[in-house]
C-alpha cells in the first residue's frame, strides 16, 4: 500500500463572497511510498505550498482524496495525524529562551495526555531524533545561540521526535548556503532510505531535486504539469512553461538530468571588452543553477 496517495485532489482559495475562486490547485495525483524522497517543484505562486498543506491534512480537498496509509488524512484526529505526519518548519521564532533539548522534546506532544509531563520514553525518542540529525552535541545549548544550519537540524529533530512516517518540508534549503543545502538534502535522503520515512519537500532547487529525489511533481499556476522521476519530468518544454525562463536540460554521465539557463544575457548585453566597448552575446552561456 502506498504511504501517501493523492487522487484527483483539488483545492481553491475563495474570495470574500465565498463563491469566486481566487486561486485553484489541482487536480493533483501523486503516490509516494515508504522510503521515497519526493519534491514539489514550481515557480513562485504555482501552488506548491498549498499542495503541501493539502497533503499534510491541514487543508481538506474540495474534491478528490488524500490518503495516508489508506486512511483519509483529513479525517484523522489532530493528535493521531501529528503522530504520523510531521510538517517541518522553515524557521522558528522563539519568544523566550529555550534549550535545544526542551525544543526537541516538544515533538512528543502528540503522545501526551492532557497534563503532560515527559516520560523516559519521550526523552529516549528526543535523544534518538537528535542523533539522527547529528545534533546530539547541541542538546544543552540555547536555541538562540546556535547557527542557522544547526537550528535547521534541531527543527528537523523536533519533527523526528514525533516518530512520523511522513515528513513534509516547505523550502527547507531557502536560507542555507550551497554547502548547507547539499548537507540537508543528504540528511533527508538518508532519512528516507535508511529509516524508511517518506519525505516530501517543496523546493526551487531543480538540480538538487534531480540529484536526490526519486520522484518530482511539477506545478504551474495551480496545475500539475507532470509527475514522475526527474528524468521523466525534466523536459525543456515543461520546465520553460513552469518557470517561464529559457532553460535547457542536459544529462550527466550517470544519466541524471541537469537544468541549465539558456541565453543568460538574453542576446542583448554581455560584459565589457578590453576596448571598453560593451560586448553583445548570443547563444548559450551554460551556468548551472
Amino acid at each position: 500500500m502506498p504511504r501517501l496517495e493523492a487522487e484527483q485532489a483539488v483545492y481553491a482559495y475563495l474570495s470574500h463572497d465565498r463563491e469566486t475562486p481566487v486561486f485553484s490547485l489541482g487536480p493533483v495525483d501523486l503516490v509516494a511510498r515508504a522510503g521515497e524522497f519526493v519534491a514539489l517543484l514550481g515557480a513562485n505562486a504555482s501552488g506548491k505550498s498549498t499542495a503541501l498543506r493539502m497533503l499534510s491534512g491541514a487543508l481538506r480537498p474540495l474534491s478528490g482524496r488524500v490518503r495516508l496509509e489508506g486512511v483519509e488524512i483529513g479525517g484523522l484526529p489532530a493528535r493521531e495525524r501529528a503522530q504520523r505526519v510531521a510538517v517541518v518548519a522553515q524557521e522558528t521564532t522563539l519568544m523566550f529562551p529555550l534549550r535545544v533539548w526542551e525544543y526537541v522534546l516538544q515533538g512528543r506532544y502528540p503522545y501526551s495526555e492532557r497534563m503532560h509531563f515527559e516520560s523516559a520514553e519521550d526523552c529516549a525518542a528526543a535523544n534518538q531524533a537528535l542523533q539522527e540529525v547529528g545534533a546530539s552535541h547541541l542538546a544543552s545549548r540555547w536555541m538562540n545561540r546556535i547557527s542557522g544550519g544547526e537550528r535547521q537540524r534541531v527543527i528537523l529533530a523536533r519533527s523526528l521526535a514525533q516518530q512520523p512516517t511522513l515528513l513534509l518540508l516547505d523550502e527547507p534549503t531557502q536560507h542555507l548556503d550551497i554547502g548547507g543545502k547539499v548537507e540537508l538534502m543528504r540528511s533527508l535522503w538518508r532519512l528516507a532510505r535508511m529509516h524508511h520515512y517518506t519525505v516530501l519537500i517543496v523546493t526551487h532547487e531543480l538540480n538538487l531535486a534531480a540529484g536526490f529525489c526519486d520522484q518530482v511533481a511539477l506545478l504551474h499556476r495551480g496545475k500539475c504539469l507532470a509527475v514522475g522521476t526527474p528524468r521523466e519530468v525534466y523536459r525543456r518544454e515543461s520546465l520553460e512553461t513552469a518557470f517561464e525562463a529559457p532553460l535547457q536540460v542536459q544529462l550527466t554521465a550517470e544519466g541524471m538530468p541537469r537544468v541549465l539557463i539558456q541565453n543568460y544575457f538574453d542576446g542583448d548585453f554581455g560584459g565589457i571588452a578590453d576596448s571598453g566597448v560593451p560586448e553583445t552575446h548570443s547563444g548559450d552561456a551554460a551556468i548551472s543553477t
Partner: protein
Amino acid sequence: MQPMTVRRVLGVCGLLAVVLFGVVVISLRLGAYPISVRDIVLTLARGVMGHRAQIPSDDWLVIFGLRLPRIALGIIVGASLSVAGASFQALLRNPLADPYVLGVSSGAALGAILSLLWAPHGGLVMQMAAFAGAALTTTAVYFLGRRGGQLDSSTLLLAGIITASFLSAVIMFLMTTLAGRDLRGMAFWLMGDLATTPAVSMGLLFLVMGVTIGAIYTTTPDLNLILTGEDEARHLGVNVGRVKVVVYIAASLLTGLAVSVSGSIGYVGLLVPHLVRMLFGSDYRLLIPATALAGAIIIVAADMLGRTVMAPTELPVGAMTAVAGAPVFIYLLRRGMR
C-alpha cells in the same frame, strides 16, 4: 536532558509558598496592636483548624478581622495579575504584554467612574460596575480581534490598544467635565490600592481565582508549543483556536477581578512572569503556578512597604510597584540585550 516533572513543580511552588507564608507573617506583625510572630502563627493555625475558642478575642479581631483580609486581597490581586500577564504574553506572543494591554483596565475604570455619578460612595456598586466594564471591554475586544473566525494575535493586540486608548480618552473627558463632582474615588483607580474591602466575600474571590488559574493551567502544555509558532503547534496536534479562547477569557476574568477590587496596579503583570522565567525557566507548566505565588509575594511585600516607609502615611501599593517596577524593568531590558 532534564524534563519538567511534577516533583519539580511542587518543589518550586512549595518553596515559594513558604516564602509567601513568611511575608504574610511579617506583614501581620505590622500595626499599632503588638502581636508576636509566635502568637501570629498559633492564631493562624488555630483559625485554620477551627479552634476559634482558643484564640484571644483581640488577636482574632486584629488578625482575621483587620489585617488578614487586606493581605488576602493582596494575594488574590498579585496572583491574578501575574498569571494574567504571563497568559497574555503567551497569547499575544509578545514579551511586553501585560494584563492591561487589551483595555480591560480602562473598561473597568470607565465602569467605576460612571457608577460614581449615581453612587458617589463607591462600595459594591462601584466594584460591580468596574467588573461589568471589564467584561464588556473583554467582549468587544474579542470580536474586534477575530480574523477568519478565529482570534488572531496581531489583530487582538491592535484592537486592545485602540480600545484602551479610546476608553482612556473617554475617562479623561469625564474627569475633566465632571470636575465639580466628588470623584475622589477615582484616585483609587489611578494608583491602585488594597485599602478598600471587597464587597463580595473573600472566599468567592479565592474560588473564582483558583478555578480560573486552574483553567489556564490545563492549557500550559499547549501554550509552550504555541510560543514556538501557531502553525507549528497546530501541526503537533494543538487545538490552537480553543486554547486561545480559553486563555483570553480566563486571563481577562482574572484581570477584571483584580482591577475591580484594587484598581490598576501596574508592572506586576508585566515583570513578575519575567522574573520567574529568569529564576525557573520558560516552561509554562511551572511558570503559571510559580508566577501566581511570586505575584502574591510581591504585592503583599509592596503593600507592607507602602504601610511602613512613610508611616503613618500609607502609600498605595500601585505607587510602590511603579517605583520599584521601572528600575527592575530597565535591568531586565539591559540583561536581555547582553
